[in-house]
């Protein structure tokens, strides 16, 4: 088991330069829209050819520009699940599944039958793709791929076009359908939840480059890079000045933080997840920041507070602009907006079951940064 990808490609102003290697069988690629993750998949599948690069699957060379090797997609034995499933519209379900198969009529028919049963498509064999529901289409698309037993299955944002309530169900179905599959699966997505749920190893991409790669859980726990932290959902960042091995000044938050652990010298930034704050009333504790409410938003199961950090004396206009930025909870895809600000609102998310304590005590005077949750980033 093993995958090696080194791809260089320039398209207009965009340049893709991706390299990663993995021994895992479930790999996720996380990145905002337009970061080049789909292009990377296409190069692996052979739909696009890199300007230069090497692609190896289980020691088989699919592409090596140095040696002039570039296998056609037909020869790569890779399954590609397209975002819109790309089922052939004029063919029945059974015909669609049959398209990837080789062999005699009987062999094909037997295999198609097996797939129909495995993917619970009985009774739909004669239907056209346009007559199926989204979930059924996904099953057909996957059956069509699994039928010819590819070495690698590539999933290109398979859930992004679905309704919320369907998404969860189909993700679970997909996990179950893939659970017996022995090959490598690569999932490309901009959703951290999907990636976390699915992948053992993770490649985080930004603007055509790999930001970081490693075990998914490790990256979520300690992203190390600011971009990785942002893409894994971290909302609060501050530039820092390292005072000594255990003290930093968080420039954007206007406070000093003291850490038990040794702070690496190359740390340039700290991050803190919006869920992780501990509210503190009246008396200041260690690593606390005084906050005042700037705005809030209520979601079905959580409440988001936008808080002014201490020392922030921004004008009203600035505040309005910020609120607009923060109102969109999906800051992740909005790129670098937070970077442009010298100081910024702190985002705190409180689950519904904890709202009680605000009703009793009012808004907290301080928020505490717990050391183990503080992300040291470069």
């Amino acid at each position, binding site marked *: 088991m093993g995958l090696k990808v080194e791809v260089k490609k320039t398209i207009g102003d965009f340049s893709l330069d991706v390299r990663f290697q993995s021994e895992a069988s479930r790999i996720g690629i996380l990145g905002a829209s337009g970061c080049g993750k789909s292009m990377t998949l*296409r190069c692996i*599948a*052979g*739909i696009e050819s890199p300007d230069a690069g090497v692609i190896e699957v289980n020691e088989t060379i699919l592409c090596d520009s140095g040696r002039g090797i570039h296998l*056609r*997609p*037909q*020869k*790569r*034995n*890779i*399954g*590609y699940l*397209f975002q*819109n499933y*790309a*089922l*052939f*519209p*004029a*063919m029945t379900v059974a015909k669609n599944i049959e*398209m*990837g198969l*080789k062999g005699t009529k009987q062999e094909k028919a037997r295999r198609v039958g097996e797939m129909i049963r495995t993917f619970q498509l009985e009774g739909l064999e004669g239907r056209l793709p346009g007559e199926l529901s989204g979930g059924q289409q996904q099953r057909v698309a996957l059956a*069509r*791929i699994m039928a*010819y037993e590819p070495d690698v299955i590539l999933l290109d944002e398979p859930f992004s076009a679905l309704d919320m309530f369907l998404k969860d169900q189909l993700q679970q179905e997909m996990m179950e359908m893939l659970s017996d599959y022995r090959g490598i699966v690569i999932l490309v997505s901009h959703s951290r939840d999907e990636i976390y749920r699915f992948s053992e190893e993770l490649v985080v991409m930004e603007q055509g480059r790999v930001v970081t790669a490693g075990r998914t859980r490790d990256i979520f726990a300690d992203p190390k890079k600011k971009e990785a932290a942002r893409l894994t959902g971290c909302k609060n960042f501050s530039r820092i000045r390292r005072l000594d091995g255990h003290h930093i000044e968080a420039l954007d938050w206007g406070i000093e933080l003291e850490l038990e652990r040794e702070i690496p010298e190359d740390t340039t930034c700290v991050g803190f997840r919006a869920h992780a704050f501990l509210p503190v009333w009246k008396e200041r504790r260690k690593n606390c920041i005084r906050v005042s409410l700037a705005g809030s938003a209520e979601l079905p199961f959580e409440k988001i507070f936008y808080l002014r950090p201490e020392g922030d004396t921004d004008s009203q206009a600035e505040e309005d602009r910020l609120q607009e930025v923060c109102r969109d909870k999906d800051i992740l895809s909005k790129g670098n907006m937070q970077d442009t600000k010298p100081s910024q609102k702190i985002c705190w998310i409180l689950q519904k079951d904890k709202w009680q304590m605000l009703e009793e005590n009012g808004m907290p005077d301080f928020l505490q940064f717990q050391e183990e949750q503080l992300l040291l980033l470069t």
Partner: protein
Amino acid sequence: MKAVWEIFNELDWSPLWISLKTGVVATVISFFLGIFAAKRVMRAPVRKKAFIDGLLTLPMVLPPTVAGFFLLLLFSRRRPLGIFLYENLDIKVVQTWLGCVIAATVIAFPLMYRNARGAFEQIDVNLIYAGRTLGMSEMQIFWKVVVPAARPGIVSGTILTFARALGEYGATSMLAGNIPGKTGTISQKIAMVIQDGDYLTAGIWVAIVIFIAFAVIVFMNLAAGRKMKNVKKW
């Protein structure tokens, strides 16, 4: 009314058969050439595409007599190509039924080519990528995936091509002439009898042409009907 019936009974049907035969052959040739050209032009780089597309569409836009003029220049037996065809292959184009077919094909071909190209360009490119990753050959992808997905455009292109080829007059009269029983198509027959002042015969042929043309259009609508059910009304 009696006079009409008499003429009808004694009618020389050869123009109908010549027209139908010409139409069918020209349509078959245009079908394959048009699809082939559509596929090639679609993939060409932008400038080349604009140029070649212009060249291929020209016969549709030009007066048919202009196309006829060029065809005559090309195939005349006093010209290199005409001489070559006649001396080496014993093929005569001018004043023959082959001339009818060539004239009709050149004039009607752009309709096939344009419709096919329009249909191909609308196709979801992921379908083709999917075919490739599934291991299908390019030929298989083209005939099993692309053509069926482009079916409405190809069907309407084919029928329009047939209708146009059937009614071709200008270029045909110049290249193939109007030899009764040989190159005399319906359109030429109508022009001829009107010159003779025989409006009754002309009327009968006009009725036949209208009937065929209308039948073709209705057939086309019915063929596309299945797809049209899904069209949003607004």
